């Protein structure tokens, strides 16, 4: 056993960590380039070039894509590492968003709490906690909810679990939509939502709502932390337990992996990440609005994870950036281009259902492991192929 362990460590780790190093450096360089570009170069460009960038890659799209990346990395822990299908991830995004709404705004007028809050807010009532603490608060609330929903249902079969999470993903947004009057208490301000939320305070500066490049830097930092955490977890005892469960639950439990607590941990960590994404998104759009949280968010996140490569953080990141860009800017901009050139009036954004549905089906049929696959997952995903090729095919 010992020998086996050492052998696998020797043969695998250097290659893996080298590839992680390459990806990390690439990620940081890309982030730095984008940041420099939008902070210093963009407004010096000639107007025509600026328009092109504003159409095809506006800074708000870049920031929003980073939020998607944070959430997708969280979902990757649940779906990619632990192999539990979660179809209600939007619930965590919503809860994270509302924690920003509760703890970073003048919404709860009846109280007056300020904890390291930006100085402009000191005169206003409500709960004002600094963004950095709210990230943790939102994450922890989500993690608790993840465990609450997970504890009774994780002993179920995987497809039942998918359904329960889907139901949960429906309940939470409905609670927030109807939350204007919960027994006389206004929890969420109903469909009007909570807006604005406090600005982010960084040392020596308070960011305005349109400080895109600063926010970009902060979101990149959050993403980097999430990536670091997932990579470290993946390597450690917990990550190996997750992978074991994903590959064979029965065998894993025979080897002494405690199924319940390991799955719960996956849920909690994934939900934490979703909460952080939710808080970040609330600061990005400067508010939380209940009608934004719908089922298609859960599916888009799933498409990101599946497209990028379940279990591979970098693949998921690339998948998330790509899908987020297509969803928010790429498809409408491309549609405008086509419509203007060919004088047509096709409603391109309505094709996103087809696009994401098609991506899910085609990836599952032809490239189950994703664009940038994790080697281990690739092996499992095609384990049964030789037998399934001629299943019942004789008829």
């Amino acid at each position, binding site marked *: 056993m010992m020998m086996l362990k050492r052998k696998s460590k020797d043969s695998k780790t250097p290659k893996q960590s080298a590839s992680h190093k390459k990806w990390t450096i690439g990620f940081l360089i890309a982030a730095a380039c984008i940041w420099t570009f939008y902070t210093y170069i963009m407004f010096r460009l000639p107007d025509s070039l600026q328009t092109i960038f504003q159409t095809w890659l506006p800074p708000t799209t870049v920031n929003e894509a980073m939020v998607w990346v944070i959430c997708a990395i969280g979902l990757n822990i649940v*779906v990619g590492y632990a*192999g539990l*299908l979660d*179809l209600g991830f939007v619930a965590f995004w919503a809860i994270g968003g509302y924690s920003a709404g509760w703890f970073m705004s003048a919404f709860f007028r009846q109280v007056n709490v300020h904890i390291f809050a930006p100085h402009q807010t000191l005169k206003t009532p409500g709960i004002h906690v600094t963004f950095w603490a709210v990230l943790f608060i939102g994450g922890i609330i989500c993690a608790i909810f993840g465990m609450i*929903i997970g504890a*009774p*249902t994780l002993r*179920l*079969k*995987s*497809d*039942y679990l*998918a*359904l*329960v999470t*889907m*139901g*949960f993903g*429906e*309940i939470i947004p*409905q*609670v927030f*939509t*109807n939350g204007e009057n919960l027994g006389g208490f206004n929890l969420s301000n109903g469909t009007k939502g909570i807006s604005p939320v406090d600005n982010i305070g960084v040392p020596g500066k308070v960011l305005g709502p349109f400080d895109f490049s600063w926010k970009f830097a902060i979101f990149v930092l959050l993403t980097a932390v999430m990536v670091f955490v997932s990579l470290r977890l993946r390597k450690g005892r917990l990550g190996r337990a997750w992978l074991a469960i994903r590959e064979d639950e*029965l065998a894993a439990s025979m080897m002494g992996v405690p199924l319940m607590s390991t799955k719960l941990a996956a849920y909690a960590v994934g939900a934490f990440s979703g909460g952080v994404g939710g808080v970040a998104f609330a600061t990005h759009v400067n508010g939380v609005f209940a009608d934004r949280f719908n*089922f298609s968010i859960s*599916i888009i996140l*799933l498409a990101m994870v*599946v497209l990028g490569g*379940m279990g591979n953080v970098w693949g998921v990141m690339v998948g998330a950036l790509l899908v987020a860009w297509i969803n928010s800017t790429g498809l409408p901009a491309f549609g405008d281009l086509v419509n203007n050139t060919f004088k047509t009036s096709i409603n391109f954004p*309505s*094709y996103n*259902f*087809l696009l*994401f*549905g*098609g*991506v*899910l*089906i085609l990836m*599952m*049929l032809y490239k*189950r492991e994703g664009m940038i696959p994790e080697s281990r997952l690739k092996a*499992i*995903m095609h*384990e*049964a*192929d030789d*037998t*399934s090729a001629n*299943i*019942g095919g004789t*008829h």
Partner: protein
Amino acid sequence: MSLFTGGYQARQDRRRYLERGLSIIATFGILYWLGINFHKSPSQFFQASLIGLSNGVLYALIALGYTLVYGIIELINFAHGDLFMLSAVFSANFIAIWFHKEKSGPAAWGVFLMCLVAVMTFAATINVGIERFAYRRLRRAPKLAPLITAVGVSFVLQFIGLRWNGSGPKTWNTVLPAGGFHISGVNIEYTTIISFAVTAPLLLLMSWIVTRTRQGKAMRATAQDQDAARLMGINVNRTISFTFALGGALAGAAGILFQQTRGLTSYNLGFQLGLIAFTSAVMGGIGNLQGAVLGALLIGLIQGLNDGLPIGLGQQWSQTVVFSILILLMAFRPTGLLGKPVTEKV
């Protein structure tokens, strides 16, 4: 050893007592709630129950599709609700646009019956096609793969609905006789009676097919063990296709009934109704046909009572109530009301 089993046994017992206590409390709470409402306004109570039951009939038709498919290949067919949605859009177009029938009358009723056959064929064909091109190749793949595919198919069907029906909900005139009659303050609409009249024979027919025919026997055998069924000379692929056709046809019937009784179609109809129908299937015990019908009627009743009673959470909490029931069921009784406890196949 005995120590271990003793501790385990005690824990199981405690759990069982806890569950029993909670269920008794919940039952009394629900009875109390029903009692006050009944006392307050009996006619409203019966009206709400009737609306609930007529919804429940629709859910039953959809839930059977879930339960049939789950029973035979253990897949939650997330696209099933959207198949129902497409059927509703199809019937709306068939009756109102292709045959220009907007008013009730003998000719329109003929078109309604024609449409019933057409939409059942339509939905059955689509469902068989989905199985053939998306699910069949993934039958032996890891569980996650067909589930994700089903979600993808659901999105593609929603896209078709979106293109066909437009992005907003559309209202249609019904060709079924309008109005109804009163029995001591309870208004019974003709459409409700027609829903029951269409559904009951379909359910009987289906139960006859599954329990009495050769094809039904093949279905049950395939559900038990595909490999053994194949060795016995059963054409497994055709049997599974047939099951999908059966489920699809029922969803088609549900589609036309929904469209004609509510006069409404919308591309995102399928998701929530599908989820509710699946909850019903789970409530009755997934894979169990009578269970699905029972669960659907119960869920419809619960929803109708919650929406229509004077003291209730009201319509805006309807989904939350249904999905909370789903989660509680999953947590405490995943086998459902009529389901037998099964150990997971490894």
